[in-house]
C-alpha cells in the first residue's frame, strides 16, 4: 500500500533562513506528488504538484520541490522564509485508485523573528 512519511513533526527556522521539509513515499510506480499548506483552523491549499517531466517543480508563495526517484523523496524548499509561512505542511501521493490521496502526518513550521 502507498504511504507517505514526513520525518519531522516540528521545524523551527529563523525568518529569512532557508527551509527544507522532508517527504518520503512508498509507491510502486511513478507517483503523482503534492504539497499542501494548512493555516490553523482552515482547509488545505495546494502549494505545488509533480506529475512528470522536470523533477524540480515551482509552486506558489516561492516554494519549490524536487522529485528524486532514487531516494523516493519529494522535499519542499524555500530559499528565504517569511513569518507568514508559519503553518502545517502536508505531503501527499496519489494512489490513482479513484484519485485518492494518501497524506503524510504533516510538519508544523514555526518561524522565529
Amino acid at each position, binding site marked *: 500500500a502507498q504511504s507517505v512519511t514526513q520525518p519531522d*513533526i516540528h521545524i523551527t527556522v529563523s525568518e529569512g533562513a532557508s527551509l527544507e521539509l522532508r517527504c518520503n513515499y512508498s509507491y510502486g510506480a511513478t507517483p*503523482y506528488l*503534492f504539497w*499542501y499548506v494548512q493555516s490553523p*483552523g*482552515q*482547509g*488545505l*491549499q*495546494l502549494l505545488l*504538484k509533480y*506529475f512528470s517531466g522536470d523533477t524540480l517543480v515551482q509552486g506558489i508563495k516561492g516554494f519549490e520541490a524536487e522529485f528524486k526517484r532514487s531516494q523516493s523523496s519529494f522535499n519542499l524548499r524555500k530559499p528565504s522564509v517569511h513569518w507568514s509561512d508559519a503553518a502545517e505542511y*502536508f505531503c*501527499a501521493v*496519489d494512489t*490513482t485508485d*479513484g*484519485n*485518492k*490521496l*494518501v*497524506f*503524510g*502526518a*504533516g510538519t508544523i513550521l514555526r518561524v522565529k523573528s
Partner: protein
Amino acid sequence: SQTIHQWPATLVQPVGSPLSLECTVEGTSNPNLYWYRQAAGRGLQLLFYSVGIGQISSEVPQNLSASRPQDRQFILSSKKLLLSDSGFYLCAWSSSTGELFFGEGSRLTVL
C-alpha cells in the same frame, strides 16, 4: 471558477446526539468528492469518497456514514456521536488531474 463550501464551521455536540455536516461544490459537474478527518498530530484520514450520486465508498469502519443525494452535495452523518468522533472534518473535490481542493473545514467537539 470552482468553489467548495462546507458547514457548519464549528459544532459542539453531546455524546449520543446525531450529526450532519454538509458540503457543496459549485462550478464543476460530476466531481469526485471526499470526506477527510484530521486529528491532532495524525495527518488526514480518508473517511469516504464518492464518484457519483448514490455511490459511496467507505475507507474505514466507524460510527459515521456519508450520502450524496445530488451531484454536487456530499453529507457526513452520524446517528449517535462518540467522544472519538471529535476532530476537524474536511470536504474536498478532485480535478481530472487528481489534485484535491478542500473546503474550509468543520471543527466538531463531542462532549
